[in-house]
């Protein structure tokens, strides 16, 4: 199929707008999920670093469990397991100003799956960021009379978390891609919408017997993701370079980024 035909097909009957709006839903899901995952991930990382053996072991088990399960398995399980009453409660609790996609009870399963998985991954990144700080920092803090809590709050976390900014942006790229998985539990984001517009063998808008250009439409959807994620990776690289020049001769942070991790 020629590109011009695809373009025509996309613009007929608002198909293009339908798909772009679906893509916006993916981005919204990614933003909400990354914020929730950062909060939960920080809590998990602190529990993991806790001086209490039991707390630290339990947090470690939790992190390893959810990091090592396929995200799609988590999402499907939550979709089937979360009772209807919880979905209804979510729907009625969601304020009216929230984006439309979040009004659906299905989003509860989708978001919890994304947050369970990503908070575990981010907790590991944060832990690595914190542990990569030279020991002298913690020692200096305690020599200055700061207690554990104060040392974390004023000395360790501000430095450790700075180091994980590039890795977090990389995780956001992964998360962005993973938002497509919620289409499998029937949340109508970009994949569902692309499937809807390509579901008919003929074109419903022109009435002709033209086969829907599945290949081209999904290449277009892929292109949307590539544009956003490529820009994000550029930003991430720039942040990393800036961070390294700011800290001068400091060694390259031992934080595992996307480079080593497909998720």
């Amino acid at each position, binding site marked *: 199929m020629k590109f011009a035909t695809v373009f025509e097909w996309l613009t007929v009957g608002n198909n293009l707008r339908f798909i772009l709006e679906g893509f916006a839903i993916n981005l919204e899901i990614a933003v909400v999920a990354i914020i929730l995952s950062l909060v939960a991930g920080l809590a998990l990382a602190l529990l993991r670093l806790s001086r209490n053996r039991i707390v630290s072991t339990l947090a470690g088990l939790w992190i390893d469990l959810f990091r090592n399960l396929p995200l799609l*398995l988590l999402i*499907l399980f939550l979709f089937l397991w979360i009772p209807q009453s919880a979905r209804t409660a979510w729907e009625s609790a969601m304020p009216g100003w929230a984006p439309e996609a979040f009004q659906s009870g299905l989003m509860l399963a989708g978001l919890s799956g994304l947050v369970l998985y990503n908070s575990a991954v981010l907790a590991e990144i944060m832990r690595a960021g914190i542990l990569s700080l030279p020991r002298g920092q913690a020692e200096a803090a305690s020599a200055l009379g700061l207690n554990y809590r104060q040392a974390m709050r004023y000395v360790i976390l501000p430095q450790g978390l700075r180091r994980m900014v590039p890795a977090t942006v990389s995780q956001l*790229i992964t998360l962005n891609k993973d938002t497509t998985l919620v289409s499998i539990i029937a949340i109508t984001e970009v994949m569902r919408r692309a499937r809807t517009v390509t579901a008919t063998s003929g074109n419903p808008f022109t009435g002709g017997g033209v086969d829907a250009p*599945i290949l081209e439409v999904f290449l277009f959807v892929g292109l949307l993701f*590539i544009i956003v*994620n490529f820009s994000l990776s550029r930003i991430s690289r720039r942040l990393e370079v800036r961070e390294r020049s700011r800290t001068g001769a400091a060694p390259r942070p031992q934080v595992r980024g996307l480079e*080593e991790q497909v998720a």
Partner: protein
Amino acid sequence: MPLGFVDTLTDNLDEFVAGFGTTVQIVVVSFVIAIVVGTLVAAFRVAPNPWLQRAGGLYVEFFRNIPLLVLLFISFPGLRRAGVEISAIVAGIASLGLYTAAYVAEALRSGVFSVSKGQIEASLSLGFGYPETLRRIVLPQAFRTVISPLGSLIIAMIKNSAILGGSILALDDLLKTGRVIQSRTFETIPSFVWAASGYLILTGLATVAIRHLESRYAVRR
């Protein structure tokens, strides 16, 4: 543990084992593809020719930034509608392999840069050409530094393979098996817990194997 929990496993053991086997097959074949293609792309990216470098870069940026699910839609219903007779399993394995190859290429490339320049200069001055230097001097050393990143990639691949069974391809892998058993028995928690255990066994085995390899070969630079 209630008895019904174990029953879900023992009653459907054959199916779970078959699903587990399919997942293992998918992961093994895709990983071979990922290593072969990834090595090629990495060689492109460090090649002296700028056009080859650009082609390698384009490959990496395309496959790394596109969701695997979109790739599956392109490679299966997309190609079929475009007239290519491709089967679900081939489309799935090729997508997963080519997708992971982009990450393998990046891991190898950073490994290649970790090999000191002197090694390459020494090799060139001994009369090795560029391809020979890459094959005999650089890659063997690079492979040793990239054992742990490659390990993370295998684990990610095991997890990503579930998308092949969960999506339109509907390959009979471990996740699909869990779903089918859930829809037949309505034992949601046991079905998914047993499917999840299968994945945890695989990721656990991979972790142990990588740790073993690391302690034997890995070079910290």
